[in-house]
C-alpha cells in the first residue's frame, strides 16, 4: 500500500446519507418522517448543546479556567467531579431513550411509531451508555473523589494517568454522542453478539462505533483499576492497616481488582471482532472455522465480573450511609470485608449462566447454576449486616438513607429473581425475555444507581461546601423508587408471558395493560430525573443557607470529613495518624479532631498536565477515523498519541510545591471557622444552623 492510497477517500465512508435526516428527505414516507424527525431532534440537541456550551464559555470567558482549573488538572477530586458530570449527562440521554422505548412498547400492539431499526439502535445505545458511560464513570468518579480522602492521602498514586483514564472515557462517551449525528449506531445490543455484528449481517458503521467506544472505555477502566489498587496499597495514612480501612475503600479495592482482571477479556473480544470486520479474520463468523460461542464466552467472562464492578462500590456507599445515618458503627466489619472479597472471587466463576441455553450439558449448567447461587450467600450476609447496623441505632431518614432503604427492599427482590435465573431450569424459560430485563434492572437501578445517587447526596457537601435540598431530594428519591417499581415489576410478568426482550412490537393483546403500567413507571422515573435537576438548581440558589465549610455535616465517621468542605487541593494540612476504624469518630470523641499542628511543612502536589485532554482528543479522533475508514487520520492520530506518550516520559518537572505558609494560612482559616461554629445535634442536621460541626458524645453516640 502506498501513501497516496491513504488519501484516496479523505472522508472515508462519510456521505450525505450519514446524516440523520437524509433518508427522510430521499424517501418521505410517514414512517421515515417520524423516525427521521426523532433522530434529527436528537442530533440537533447534541449539536446545539455543544454550540450553547461553547458560546457560554466564551461569553463568560471561562475557557482558560476550564482548561487550567479542570481539564488539565491532576487533582483526584476534580477528576472525580468531571467523571460524575459525564455520568449525569449520559444518564439523561439514556433515560430519555428508555422512555422512548417504553412509549413505543405501550403502543406497540401491531405497530407503533418507531421503526424496528430505530428501536434497535435505542436499546443498543441505552445499554451501552448505561453500563459504560453512566454507571462506570459515576462509580469511578465517586471512588476518585472519596477513596484518597478516606485513606488520608493527598492524591492517587498516578495522577496524570488518572487524567488520561478520564480522557479515554470522555472520548468514548463523545463517540457515542457523535453517533447520533453521523451514521447509525449498532443494532446488536449492548453485548453485540456475532455473527449478527459481523460484516455479513451488519455492514454499516454501527458495530464499529460500538467496538471503539467500548475499547476506549475499557482501556480507561483498566488503567483506573490499576491506579485505584496501587493507591490503596501504597498511599494509606500512617497507622491505617487494611482492616482499618472504611468499607467503601474496601469495595473500591475489590472493584479495582475486578477491573484489572475483567477488562482485558472485553478488550480482546472487541479487538477480535474488529479484526473480523476490518481485516477479514474469522474469529466469530459462521464460516471458515469461526465460532460465535467464543465471543459469548469471552464477553461474559468480562460481563459477569462487570456487574460486580458496578455493584460493589454501591455496597460500599450503603455501608457508609447506613452506618452514618444510624449514628452507629458498622456491624460485622470483618464479615463484610470477607463477603466483599468472596463476591469478587466468585464473580469470575459464574459467567456461563449468561448462556445456559447454548447446548452444553446438564453437569456444566448445574455447576454454574449453583456457583451463581453461591454469590447470594455473601450478598445475604451484607443485607443482614446492614440491618444489624440499624438495629439499636438512631436512624435519620435523610435522602441518602431513603435511597439506602429503597435499595435494601428492592434489591432483595432483584436478588431473588437472580437466584431464579441462576437455576438453569428456570433460565431455559425466561432467558432472553423481558423477565431478564426486569431482573438486571432490578439489581442495577436500586443497586448501582441508587448507590451512586446516595453517594451524590452524601458527599456533595464535601465537594462543594453546601448541602443539597432535602425536600426535592426526597421527592426525587421517591419518584425513583416508585417509578422503578412501576416500570419493571410488570416486565417480570410480561417475561413469564413469553415477551422476548428487544421486541419493537407484538401481536398479543394480553401484553397491553402491563405495558401501559410500565410506561407510567417510566414517566415517573423521568420525573425523578427532572426533580434531581431541579433540586440541584434550588440547592445552588439557596446555597448560603446550607453552607458547611467546617466540613462534617452528617456526623461522619471516616477521614474525608476531617477536612474543610470543599477540601484544599492537598486534602489535609497534616496527614492524620490512624489507630483504628472510624478514625474521625475516634478523633472527635477524644477531642483531637480539630488540632493545630506545631509546625507546617511544604506540600508536594502533581503539576497540571495536558496529557489527559490530549489523549481524549487523539483517542476520539482515532476511534472516529477508524469507524469511518479515514485512514490518513488513523495513522496521524496513532503516531501523535504514541509520540505524546514518549515525550511525556521525558518530563521531569512534574510536581509543584505548596509553601508551608500557605498551608498554614488555609488551615488557620479553617480552624478559626471550627472555633466559631456551633456544634449541632442531628435534629438540626438539615437546618441552616448546621455549618458542618457535629456534636459527638464521648460514648460514641451521635446526639
Amino acid at each position, binding site marked *: 500500500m502506498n501513501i497516496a492510497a491513504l488519501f484516496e477517500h479523505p472522508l472515508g465512508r462519510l456521505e450525505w446519507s450519514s446524516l440523520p435526516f437524509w433518508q427522510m428527505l430521499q424517501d418521505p414516507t410517514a414512517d421515515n418522517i417520524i423516525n427521521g424527525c426523532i433522530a434529527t431532534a436528537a442530533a440537533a440537541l447534541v449539536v446545539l448543546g455543544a454550540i450553547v456550551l461553547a458560546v457560554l464559555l466564551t461569553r463568560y470567558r471561562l475557557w482558560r479556567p476550564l482548561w487550567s482549573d479542570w481539564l488539565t488538572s491532576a487533582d483526584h477530586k476534580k477528576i472525580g467531579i468531571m467523571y460524575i458530570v459525564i455520568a449525569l449527562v449520559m444518564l439523561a440521554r439514556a433515560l430519555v431513550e428508555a422512555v422512548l422505548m417504553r412509549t413505543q412498547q405501550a403502543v406497540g400492539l401491531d405497530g407503533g411509531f418507531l421503526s424496528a431499526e430505530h428501536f434497535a439502535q435505542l436499546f443498543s445505545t441505552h445499554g451501552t451508555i448505561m453500563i459504560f458511560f453512566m454507571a462506570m464513570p459515576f462509580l469511578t468518579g465517586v471512588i476518585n473523589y472519596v477513596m484518597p480522602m478516606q485513606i488520608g492521602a493527598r492524591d492517587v498514586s498516578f495522577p496524570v494517568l488518572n487524567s488520561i483514564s478520564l480522557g479515554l472515557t470522555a472520548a468514548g462517551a463523545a463517540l457515542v454522542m457523535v453517533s447520533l449525528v453521523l451514521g447509525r449506531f449498532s443494532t446488536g445490543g449492548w453485548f453485540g453478539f456475532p455473527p449478527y455484528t459481523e460484516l455479513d449481517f451488519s455492514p454499516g458503521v454501527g458495530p464499529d462505533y460500538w467496538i471503539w467506544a467500548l475499547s476506549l472505555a475499557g482501556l480507561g477502566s483498566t488503567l483506573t483499576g490499576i491506579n485505584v489498587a496501587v493507591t490503596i496499597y501504597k498511599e494509606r495514612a500512617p497507622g491505617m492497616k487494611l482492616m482499618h480501612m472504611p468499607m467503601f475503600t474496601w469495595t473500591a479495592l475489590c472493584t479495582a481488582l475486578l477491573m484489572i482482571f475483567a477488562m482485558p477479556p472485553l478488550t480482546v473480544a472487541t479487538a477480535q471482532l474488529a479484526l473480523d470486520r476490518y481485516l477479514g479474520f474469522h474469529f466469530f463468523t459462521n464460516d471458515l472455522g469461526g465460532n460465535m*460461542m467464543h465471543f459469548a464466552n469471552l464477553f461474559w467472562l468480562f460481563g459477569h465480573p462487570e456487574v460486580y464492578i458496578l455493584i460493589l462500590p454501591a455496597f460500599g456507599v450503603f455501608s457508609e450511609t447506613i452506618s452514618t445515618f444510624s449514628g452507629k458503627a458498622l456491624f460485622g466489619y470483618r464479615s463484610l470485608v470477607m463477603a466483599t472479597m468472596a463476591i469478587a472471587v466468585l464473580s469470575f466463576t459464574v459467567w456461563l449462566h449468561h448462556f445456559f441455553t447454548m447446548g452444553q450439558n446438564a453437569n456444566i449448567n448445574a455447576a454454574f447454576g449453583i456457583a451463581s447461587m453461591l454469590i447470594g450467600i455473601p450478598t445475604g450476609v451484607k443485607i443482614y449486616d446492614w440491618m444489624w447496623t440499624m438495629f439499636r441505632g438512631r436512624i435519620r431518614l435523610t435522602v441518602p438513607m431513603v435511597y439506602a432503604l429503597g435499595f435494601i*427492599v428492592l434489591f432483595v427482590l432483584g436478588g431473588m429473581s437472580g437466584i431464579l435465573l441462576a437455576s438453569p431450569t428456570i433460565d431455559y424459560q425466561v432467558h432472553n425475555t423481558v423477565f431478564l430485563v426486569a431482573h438486571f434492572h432490578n439489581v442495577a437501578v436500586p443497586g448501582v444507581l441508587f448507590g451512586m445517587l446516595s453517594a451524590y447526596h452524601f458527599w456533595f457537601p464535601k465537594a462543594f461546601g453546601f448541602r443539597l435540598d432535602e425536600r426535592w431530594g426526597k421527592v426525587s428519591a421517591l419518584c425513583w423508587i416508585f417509578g422503578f417499581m*412501576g416500570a419493571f415489576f410488570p416486565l417480570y410478568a410480561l417475561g413469564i408471558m413469553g415477551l422476548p426482550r428487544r421486541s419493537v412490537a407484538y401481536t398479543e393483546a394480553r401484553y397491553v395493560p402491563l405495558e401501559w403500567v410500565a410506561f407510567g413507571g417510566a414517566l415517573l422515573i423521568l420525573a425523578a430525573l427532572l426533580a434531581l435537576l431541579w433540586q440541584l438548581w434550588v440547592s445552588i440558589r439557596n446555597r448560603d443557607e446550607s453552607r458547611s465549610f467546617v466540613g462534617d455535616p452528617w456526623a461522619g465517621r471516616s477521614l474525608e470529613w476531617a477536612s474543610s468542605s470543599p477540601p484544599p487541593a492537598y486534602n489535609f494540612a497534616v496527614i492524620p495518624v490512624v489507630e483504628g476504624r472510624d478514625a474521625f469518630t475516634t478523633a472527635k470523641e477524644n477531642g483531637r479532631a480539630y488540632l493545630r499542628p506545631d509546625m507546617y511543612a511544604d506540600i508536594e502536589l502533581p503539576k497540571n498536565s495536558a496529557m489527559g485532554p490530549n489523549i481524549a482528543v487523539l483517542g476520539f479522533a482515532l476511534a472516529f477515523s477508524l469507524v469511518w475508514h479515514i485512514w490518513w487520520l488513523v495513522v496521524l492520530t496513532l503516531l501523535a498519541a504514541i509520540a505524546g506518550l514518549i515525550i511525556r516520559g521525558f518530563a521531569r518537572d512534574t510536581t509543584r510545591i505548596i509553601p508551608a505558609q500557605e498551608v498554614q494560612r488555609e488551615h488557620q482559616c479553617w480552624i478559626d471557622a471550627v472555633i466559631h461554629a456551633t456544634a449541632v445535634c442531628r435534629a438540626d442536621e438539615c437546618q441552616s444552623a448546621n455549618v458542618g460541626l457535629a456534636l459527638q458524645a464521648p460514648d460514641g453516640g451521635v446526639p
Partner: protein
Amino acid sequence: MVALGYWGALFIMLMMLNACAGSKHLSFLDPQGPVAEAQRSHFYWVLGILAVFVAVPIFLLLPFFVWRYRYGRKASRYTPRWENSRLLGIMSWVGPIAIVIVLAFFVWRDAHQLDPYRPLASEQSPLQVEVIGYDWKWLFIYPDQGIASIGTLALPVGRPVLLHLTSATVMQSFFIPALGSQIYAMGGMVTQLNLQATQPGASLGENTMYNGDGFHQQKFTARAMDPADFEVWVSKVRATGLPLDAQSLQIIAQPSTHRDLIAALPGARSMGGDVYFTGVSRSLFRTVVMATMDGKPMLPGSAFDRAGMVVPDSGTAGHFTPGQAR
C-alpha cells in the same frame, strides 16, 4: 407496598393467562406438556423457598427497625459502639448457606431431569423434526414424512418430539414457552431439544434472540393435535405443499418476514397463512449446516446441489459430527 406491587404484577399476569382461554398458550405457567409442567413446579418451589426464607424476614425486620430505632424515638435503646455479635454473625452466614444448599439440590436434580437433550420417557419413538432458523422465520422439516412447514409446527399429542436445530444465518433462540425449554440455533452447528404436548391446542412459538428488523415477527404456532389429526395434517401438506427446491430455498434464505415470504413464494398464498413444502430431501438439514459452515449459506442452487453431493445421505438425523454444539 413494594411486595404488594410485586405480587400485584404477578397476579395480573396470572389473570391474563387464564382470562383468555381459547387463544394461544403463552407461558410455562399455563403448561401444555410435561417439560413445561415440571418447570412450573420447579419455579414455584424455588420462588416459595425464597419468599418464605429470604423475603419475608427482611420485609418484616427492616420496617420494624426503621420505625423502632428512628431518631425521634429517644426511648429506644441506642448502642452506638455495638458492632459485633458472634451469634448474629454466624447466623448471617448460616442462614443463606442453608438456603443455598436446599436450592442447590433442586437445581442439580432438575437441571439433569429437564436437560433439553435428554430424551423424554415414552413408549413411542420420538417424532423427528429438523429446525432451520432463517431471517425471520423458522423452517420445520419432517424428514421421515418428507415434508416441511413455515408458520406452524404440528405435533401429535402424547408422542415425544426430538428437534435438531441449526441456523442458516445469525444466532437465534427457538422457544415454545408452554411446551418447554428454549435453545440456541447456531450456524454450522446443531443443537437438540426434546418436547412433548399432552393435550391438543395452540401455543406461542418464537425466536427470542435479536436478529434484525423482522425479529419481532419471527413467531409461529406450535399446534398440538391428536395423532389422527396429525396424519391428516401430514397428508394435507403432502397434497398442497410446494416443492422445496433450490429456487424456493433461495427465496426462504432472503431476509424477509413471514408475510413477505408468502408474497415472494409463488403458490404460497393459498395456504391460510402457513407455507407447506413437499418433496423435502433427507439431506437438506445437513446440507444447510455444512453450507453455512463453508460460508456459502445463500448461494442460489449451488449450496443445495453441491453439498448434496459432498455429504452422503445417511438418512437419520442427529449424528452430525461437524459442529455439534455438544
